[in-house]
């Protein structure tokens, strides 16, 4: 059990959405779910801060949402499928979000994917890169 969870920590650049993350991110992710309704998307777009105040998140989580800092949201318990509702509300695809999270310009990211994607070499284990 412990081994099960610890094994994932060795994977670079990856946060596994386990119990710890799920508990941390519960209200952040539930806020994201609320964006599945058109009227809520409108309300959020009209006044992001006011909308976020209605959800019992931490201020850190609210700031990360406003900054559209998806890596930070993930660190604070956000799950990518939930966070994608923010992307959808902004009119952004998963690929746009990926470019934000990897810090690579969108066109460059797209070209990487067309060339076969990010290689697993050096990306399997944190120990590979030491």
């Amino acid at each position, binding site marked *: 059990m412990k081994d099960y969870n610890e094994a*994932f920590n060795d994977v670079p650049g990856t946060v*596994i959405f386990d119990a710890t993350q799920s508990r941390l991110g519960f209200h952040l*992710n539930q806020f994201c779910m609320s964006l*599945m309704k058109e009227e809520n998307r409108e309300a959020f777009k009209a006044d992001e801060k006011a909308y976020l105040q209605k959800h019992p998140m931490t201020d850190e989580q609210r700031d990360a949402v406003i900054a559209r800092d998806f890596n930070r949201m993930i660190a604070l318990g956000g*799950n990518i499928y939930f966070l994608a509702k923010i992307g959808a509300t902004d009119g952004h695809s*998963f*690929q746009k979000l990926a470019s934000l999270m990897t810090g690579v310009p969108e066109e460059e990211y797209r070209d990487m994917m067309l060339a076969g*994607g*990010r290689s697993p070499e050096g990306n399997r284990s944190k120990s590979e890169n030491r």
Partner: protein
Amino acid sequence: MARLTGGIATSHVPAIGVAIDLGKTNEDYWKPLFAGYDFSKKWIKEEKPDVVILVYNDHASAFSLELIPTFAIGCAESFQPADEGWGHRKVPVVEGHPELAWHIAQSTILDEFDMTIINKMDVDHGLTVPLSLMFGEPEKWPCKIIPIAVNVVQYPPPTGNRCYNLGKAIRKAVESFDADLNVQIWGTGGMSHQLQGPRAGLINQEFDNQFLDRIVKDPEGQAKVPHIDYVREAGSEGIELVMWLIMRGALDKDVEEVYRFYHVPASNTAVGHLILKNKT
């Protein structure tokens, strides 16, 4: 009795749905992908399944964090396409097969699978994109669909072995249903992809191709592969591939590979597709 005649595996990338819905299937980026499904569209028109048991995962559409079923079976009369944040996909309503779905629910629960029975549920791209890939853009889907939603979002997902055995239990249930029906089972999701964090964009063609070989020829071996191997090799969202094992478990151990297609990329994802047919 109903017959489980074949299985289909396919990725269910949301961008594929968007490409179809926005009429982009002839663009250079998408053309090779859709061409890979030309054979399949013809094949399934000849096979004419009456019912498809469609194994997929919900992507925070029907299930929030309030309630997360490991295995859920849709027993409703129909299922609406979900609004995933950009409005409902303009695809036909998904018509269920309540009699067979309830029969599978009962049979698998008595076989000690702890199913969640669902009588109201919206279905997201995980279910509708495979339908579009196989059936194109009809007025109405040409068969009934029984959704089986598997949790692969909240860790831990079910083990590969559990998925494989659920497939076997589904087969047994189908073959004890007293109606002359041609039933297929589809396993969807994957192949290698990671949507989150600095490692987003990971694709592992070697792993994917080995997986395609193994799921056909050595499903029992593949069923033993632990979650960490999927995450390490196929990216954090590559874990969706465990769902293919449910499809595979419902087929004969020795199966005919009718068709295979593999393509990189669709958005962030490697696309894999198999058509398998029982010899018996």
